[in-house]
């Protein structure tokens, strides 16, 4: 993409709970780095990274956007991610391909649920991160209270590198604990002007205490730095920064900075921290290649890693697909090698060749054509025919498959049908393209009603998809009411034998299968095992048995919901030399599933949501009582100033329309967030209702 040396590149994400200031911070970064010549605002609908119509109208980020800027001789590729849980797939795929992240924490509320969820995702992908406590100008902001929630909710060693000078309206700057100086913003020129001065006398003792804490934790990662400290009684700024970088990359501690992006204070030191403490592509261990079949998770550390090396064979991961009027754009993180327009690579996940057409460096929705990409780059390719999110592209001489991405489980279904006959084809095409972009969106046809069913992460997610269907594909559609995405499973083992026999003249059909069904733990999916011996079922018919049951599992025996978390083992069977066929075995397997499931203690599972309600103290009783009526299990309650945060696990079924009820109960003073937590069996009376409805 350019001649930038790898150690001068940072690939980072900005992530947080909804409305914590991610896009606002990104906007300042683009301004201070000279990419933009004005600062856009979320509430004005004119930010760079919220470029979709829906984002600008609603004031929220829906899709992650990539931008590039230069700061002090370094190139920073930034991905701004959404905060709403319905669009968590965007955070997931971004963290998967980034080398570092800025976690923005709100200075009033501290760590909020989506921050926790994203933090755990970053843990999963071992992403080094720095924390920015934002909105310190807000009424009720408290740096130290927000800081304490880092320890309480994330269980981390959080290490302040700065302290605030003033708070709320009086917030004017920060104490830099590394260089022991004050940085004061002067108010004009949108925060571009600031200067250093002495630490205010009333903060000096506190600053010394926090600096000692910084030295204690940072120097512990490097013996040479400890020795420098013992020799001189202090360490140089360079030594301290080196130690902070080591600790940030290893996760020994998490550096904390602060400011208010909206009031243009604190962003430039945050950019400095990105250069000083977050890794370049060569500072990280490299991406692991995917596990071989049957390999244990514990062997992950032993797996080969692809290091960032422009002269090595090419390897990259497709992490995002966008369809627009110019065609399909495939976003790729390049892990090693160099690739030019017109080159051919292997899609090693699917096993076919792909020719690279044009390549672009993306700046939100704008693009600049480039002729080649190198290890460490993030770019968008045009011309790939069949490459999906999570697929690996690699050079033929080293056809590695990189670790795939894990996608969240959709929890809400809606039925959708076009208003006109002419719309059928357009709708199918549009939905297929949208599902191709968004792995958290699933599309299926209800076998009984023939309706198209969309499954997504929440009401907002599906609302946006339907809106995009209309705007981008011109399809007006009738939408059914949102339905809970129930699942079915079994509660006890059972062995079923089924014989499919049809002989009515001509060639007949004959197949017999004996299948053991047994329940698995939640989220283990569907597992098939073949234990047939002695050719009781010929080898060529085994895949038909496996397929028959997998296909039939989409329609559960109780209420037609997909059946999950069970193992089926083909243990025996019979065949006929003339009348047996793959089709006969598939039919037998489907029938065996239908009969066997009924006797294996089938149950219906419902999604349980992790709900967090923030309410004023005087409405806690109403909120808790209401959650109990909704079959909620209260997990805990904690006070934060005059508000109380109530956490509960509540079935999704009971949460439709909750926001209206909550507003009316609390005169609009409470708010809530929720995200999927787990699947649980539904109570008997509710199961009866669901079955009656499906009948």
């Amino acid at each position, binding site marked *: 993409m350019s001649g930038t040396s790898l150690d001068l590149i940072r690939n980072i994400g900005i992530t947080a709970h909804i409305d914590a200031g991610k896009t606002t911070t990104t906007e300042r970064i683009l301004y201070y780095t000279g990419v933009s010549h004005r600062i856009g605002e979320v509430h004005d609908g004119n930010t760079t990274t919220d470029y979709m119509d829906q984002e600008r109208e609603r004031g929220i980020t829906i899709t992650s956007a990539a931008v590039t800027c230069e700061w002090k001789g370094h190139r920073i590729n930034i991905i701004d991610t959404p905060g709403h849980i319905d669009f968590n797939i965007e955070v997931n795929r971004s963290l998967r391909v980034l080398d570092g992240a800025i976690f923005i924490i709100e200075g009033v509320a501290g760590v909020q649920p989506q921050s926790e969820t994203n933090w755990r995702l970053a843990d999963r992908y071992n992403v080094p991160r720095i924390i920015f406590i934002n909105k310190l100008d807000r009424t009720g902001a408290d740096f130290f209270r927000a800081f304490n929630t880092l320890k309480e909710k994330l269980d981390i060693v959080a290490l302040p590198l700065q302290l605030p000078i003033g708070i709320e309206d009086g917030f004017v700057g920060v104490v830099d604990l590394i260089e022991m100086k004050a940085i004061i913003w002067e108010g004009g020129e949108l925060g571009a002007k600031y200067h250093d001065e002495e630490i205010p006398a009333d903060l000096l003792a506190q600053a010394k205490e926090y600096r000692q804490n910084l030295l204690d934790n940072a120097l*512990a*990662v490097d013996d040479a730095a400890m020795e420098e*400290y*013992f020799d001189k009684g202090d360490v140089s700024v360079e030594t301290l920064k080196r130690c902070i970088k080591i600790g940030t990359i290893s996760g020994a501690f998490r550096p904390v900075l602060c400011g208010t992006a909206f009031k243009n204070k604190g962003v430039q030191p945050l950019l400095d921290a990105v250069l000083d403490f977050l890794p370049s592509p060569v500072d990280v261990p490299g991406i692991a290649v995917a596990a071989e079949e049957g390999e244990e998770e514990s062997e992950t550390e032993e797996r080969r890693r692809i290091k960032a090396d422009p002269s090595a064979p090419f390897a990259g991961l497709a992490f995002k697909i966008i369809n627009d009027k110019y065609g399909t754009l495939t976003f790729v993180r390049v892990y090693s090698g160099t690739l030019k327009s017109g080159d051919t690579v292997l899609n090693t996940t699917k096993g076919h060749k792909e020719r690279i057409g044009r390549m672009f460096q993306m700046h939100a929705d704008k693009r600049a054509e480039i002729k080649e990409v190198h290890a460490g780059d993030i770019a968008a390719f045009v011309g790939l025919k069949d490459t999906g999110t999570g697929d690996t592209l690699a050079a033929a001489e080293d056809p590695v498959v990189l670790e795939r991405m894990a996608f969240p489980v959709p929890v809400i279904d809606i039925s959708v049908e076009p208003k006109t006959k002419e719309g059928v084809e357009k709708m199918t095409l549009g939905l297929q393209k949208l599902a191709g972009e968004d792995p958290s969106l699933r599309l299926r046809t209800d076998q009984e009603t023939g309706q198209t069913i969309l499954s997504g992460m929440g009401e907002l997610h599906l609302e946006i998809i339907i809106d995009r269907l209309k705007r981008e594909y011109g399809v007006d559609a009738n939408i059914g009411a949102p339905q809970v995405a129930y699942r079915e499973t079994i509660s006890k083992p059972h062995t079923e034998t089924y014989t499919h026999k049809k002989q009515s003249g001509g060639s007949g059909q004959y197949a017999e299968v004996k299948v053991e069904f047994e329940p698995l733990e939640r989220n283990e999916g569907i597992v098939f095992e073949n234990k047939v011996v002695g050719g009781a079922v010929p080898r060529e018919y085994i895949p038909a048995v496996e397929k028959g049951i997998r296909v039939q599992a989409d329609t559960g025996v109780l209420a037609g919901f997909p059946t999950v978390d069970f193992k089926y083992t083909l243990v025996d069977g019979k065949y006929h030399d003339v009348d047996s066929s793959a089709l006969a075995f598939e039919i037998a397997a489907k029938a065996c599933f239908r009969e066997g499931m009924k006797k294996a203690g089938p149950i219906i599972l419902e999604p349980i949501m992790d709900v967090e309600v923030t309410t004023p103290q005087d409405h806690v009783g109403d909120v808790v009582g209401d959650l109990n009526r909704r079959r909620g299990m209260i997990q805990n309650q904690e006070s934060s100033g005059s508000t109380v945060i109530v956490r509960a696990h509540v079935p999704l079924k009971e949460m439709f329309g909750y926001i209206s009820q909550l507003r009316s109960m609390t005169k609009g003073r409470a708010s809530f967030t929720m995200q999927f937590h787990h699947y649980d069996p539904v109570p008997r009376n509710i199961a009866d209702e669901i079955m009656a409805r499906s009948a």
Partner: protein
Amino acid sequence: MRLRWARSREANPSQPAREWLGCDDAGNPIARVIHLDGPISTDRGVVRAVPLDREAKLVRLLPRPQAGGDWLAVIGGRVVGRAGAPLAAVRRAEAALAG
């Protein structure tokens, strides 16, 4: 009282030292700060191991300490303080010596 601190000879060169020795001006070791390794699962539950001699031939098993207490400041075999980081433990040891 300021001591001269040095990495313990037992330190694994590929990792930060798990033990530091504090010597007086004559080079005599009079204090140590030691990292509590573990936790270790035993039939009595999860515990931390405190070495009682330089080679850790004798080990005392203690209940898991509070977070931030992984480093012990030790003078003459007696624990005089605990801290979450070696530098803080060094200050505890020096403060104890200063009386």
